C-alpha cells in the first residue's frame, strides 16, 4: 500500500479526484481517503501535526510500503514541482536525506522546514537554493523510523514566494492538479520496483514443516535457514524432509534437522 500525506485538504483534493479515493473516516482528527492501493491522510499544518499523523498511520497500517509527502511550499519559481533531495530542519539545524534511487520527471531541490510561515524572499543559502515548507522535516523524520529512506518521497510544488496569504484551498487544488498525473506515475514506478519478500516460498515451507517436525522456536529458526539455503541452491529439501516423516516428538525432529543439514552441505 502507498500512503500519501498532505497538510491541507486543498493539497489532497487533486489526488483524491485523480485516484478516485473514497473517504474512510478519520483517526484522531486525521482525515483519511483510500482505495485498494492508496491511503491518503490529511495531517494538518506544522511539524507536530505531521509527525503525529505519520507515526499514527504507519503504526496502524503495517502494509504501507511507500510514504509520500505531497504539498505546496514557498520558493522562487511558482508552479514548479520538485523532488526533494535534502531536508533541513531550520529549528534544529538537522539535515535529512531521502535516497535518490529513482529516475523522476521533476527537478530536485533542498527543502527547508520550520514551524513559522516564511515571509521573506530569500531562497538560497551557502549550500544552494531551497524551497520552504512547514511539515517536510517532521514527515521525513517520522517516516524513516518505519521505512528505509528509499521509500520516503517528498514532492513539493511552489505556491508562493514568501506570501502565504495567497495560498487558499482552491489555489492549492488548481496548482497541484497540474502535476497530479505525473506525480502518480512517478510513485507507481517506484512502487513497481519494490520487490515482494524474497522469502515467500521459504516461509510457506517453513510453516508447513515446522509443524510436521514438531519444532521448538529454536528448531524453527534452524529449519528456516536450511530451507532458505536449499531453495537458494535448488536442492530438493521437501523430499529430504518427507523421507523422515512422520516424527513422534521434538527429539526426533531434531535428528531429522541434523540429517537434512548434513545432506544439504555435502
Amino acid at each position, binding site marked *: 500500500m502507498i500512503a500519501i500525506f498532505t497538510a491541507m485538504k486543498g493539497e489532497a483534493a487533486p489526488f483524491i479526484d485523480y485516484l478516485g479515493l473514497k473517504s474512510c473516516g478519520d483517526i484522531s482528527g486525521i482525515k483519511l481517503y483510500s482505495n485498494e492501493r492508496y491511503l491518503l491522510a490529511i495531517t494538518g499544518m506544522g511539524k507536530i501535526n505531521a509527525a503525529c499523523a505519520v507515526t499514527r498511520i504507519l503504526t496502524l497500517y503495517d502494509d504501507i510500503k511507500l510514504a509520500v509527502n505531497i504539498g505546496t511550499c514557498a520558493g522562487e519559481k511558482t508552479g514548479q514541482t520538485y523532488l526533494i533531495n535534502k531536508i533541513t530542519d531550520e529549528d534544529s539545524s538537522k539535515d535529512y*536525506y531521502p535516497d535518490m534511487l*529513482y529516475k523522476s520527471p521533476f527537478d*530536485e531541490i533542498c527543502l527547508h522546514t520550520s514551524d513559522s510561515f516564511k515571509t521573506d524572499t530569500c531562497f538560497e543559502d*551557502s*549550500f544552494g537554493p531551497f524551497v520552504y515548507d512547514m511539515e517536510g522535516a517532521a514527515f521525513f523524520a517520522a517516516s524513516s523510523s518505519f521505512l528505509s529512506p528509499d521509500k520516503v518521497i517528498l514532492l513539493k510544488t511552489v505556491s508562493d514566494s514568501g506570501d502565504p496569504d495567497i495560498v487558499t484551498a482552491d489555489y492549492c487544488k488548481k496548482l497541484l492538479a497540474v502535476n497530479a498525473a505525473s506525480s502518480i506515475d512517478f510513485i507507481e514506478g517506484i512502487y513497481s520496483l519494490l520487490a515482494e519478500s*524474497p522469502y515467500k516460498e521459504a516461509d510457506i515451507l517453513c510453516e508447513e514443516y515446522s509443524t510436521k517436525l514438531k519444532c521448538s522456536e529454536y528448531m524453527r529458526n534452524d529449519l528456516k535457514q536450511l530451507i532458505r539455503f536449499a531453495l537458494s541452491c535448488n536442492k530438493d529439501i521437501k523430499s529430504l524432509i518427507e523421507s523422515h516423516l512422520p516424527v513422534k516428538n521434538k527429539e526426533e525432529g531434531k535428528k531429522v534437522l541434523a540429517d537434512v543439514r548434513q545432506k544439504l552441505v555435502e
Partner: protein
Amino acid sequence: MSDKSLLNKPFEHIYIEEGVKDHPMTLQVLARYESSKRIYIRHYKDVFNRKNQNFRAQSMSRSLILAKNTGNLIFKGSDMCQDHGNSRFYYATSVMNCLFDCDYCFLKGMYPTADIVIFVNLEDYASKIRDMLQEGPMYLSISYDTDLLALNKVADLLSFWTDLALKEKDLTLEIRTKASCDVFEPVPNIIYSFTLSPQKVISSYEKHTAGLNSRLQSVIKACEEGCKVRLCFDPVVYINGWEECYNSFMDEVIPQIPWDKITDISVGTFRISKEYQKGLRSSCPMSAVTEYPYINEGGYLKIDNELAAGMREIIVAGLREVKDEKYIFCDSDGSFLGDR
C-alpha cells in the same frame, strides 16, 4: 527489482562535504561526473549513517560521498586477514564501500549503507603513514574496504599510493582486486593481489567484477611488467557442485599462470564475523553463499571444517604441483603451510 530503467545511474548523485568542495581530488571527481547532481552536506555521516537504510536497494543505484576523514586513518589488521608474516600489518580506509557487489562481502554487514565514500584528504594519510614509519617498516593494505583498482576510474587514487610507495621504501602496499587492468606500474614495494574464483562463482556471487579470463590476463600482464603479484584463492565459497567447480577451475588456472613470477599465494575458505551475518543476509537474500548454514566458531561463521578442508585441498593440491609450499599461505582459516 524488475525494471532497472526506472533507476538512476550509479553516482547520479554526489554528496559533497562543504569543507572539501574545493579540494583538488573533489574537483577531479566532479570533472568526471559533470552531469551528476551535487548535494552539499555538513558531514558525511549525516548521509552515510542514516538509520534504517536498505543496502539492497541502494546497491542498484549507489551514490558517491566526497568527504574528509577526520577520524582514524590507519587501522591495525584484523585476525581474520592474512598478514603474510608481517607483524606491522595495517589497513587504510581512504574509501568505504565498493563498486563491485559480491554477495558475501563483509562490507554489507559492516556499513549501514551501500553508498561509497571517498576521503579526499589523502595528504593526511601520507603524513600519518610517514609518522608511523618512524617506528619501523609497515605493511599496508589499501584495498581493504573497497576495490581500489575498480574505483580508479572514479578517482585517481592509485597514482597517489604509487607515488607514496616510490618515496617510502619501508612501506609495503598491498592492492587487492577482482578488477581487470592492463596498465601496471612495477614498484618493488607494491604487491598486486588478484583474487581468483571459478567463473561459476564469479557469475553467481561476484556481481560486476571481472570474469576469470580477464583476471588471468591481468595477472599475466602484471607479471610481464615485473610487478610483485600475489594470487588469492580466497574466499573459497560454497557453490552447488563445488568439487567439480573448483577442480575444473584449477585445471583452467594452473597452465596459464607464470608461477615462477608469483610472489606468494593465499588460500582461505569463507569466514566472516558473526556480527555481520544479519546485514549480509538482508542485503543479499536467497544467495547460497549468504544462506549457507555456517558453523559458529568463536564468533566467526565458517563452512563446516571437513567440507572446508576438502575445498582447500583441491586448491592446495593443484598449487603444490607448481609452487613450493613455502609460498602458500592458508593461515587465516586455521591451517598453515607457508614459511614465516
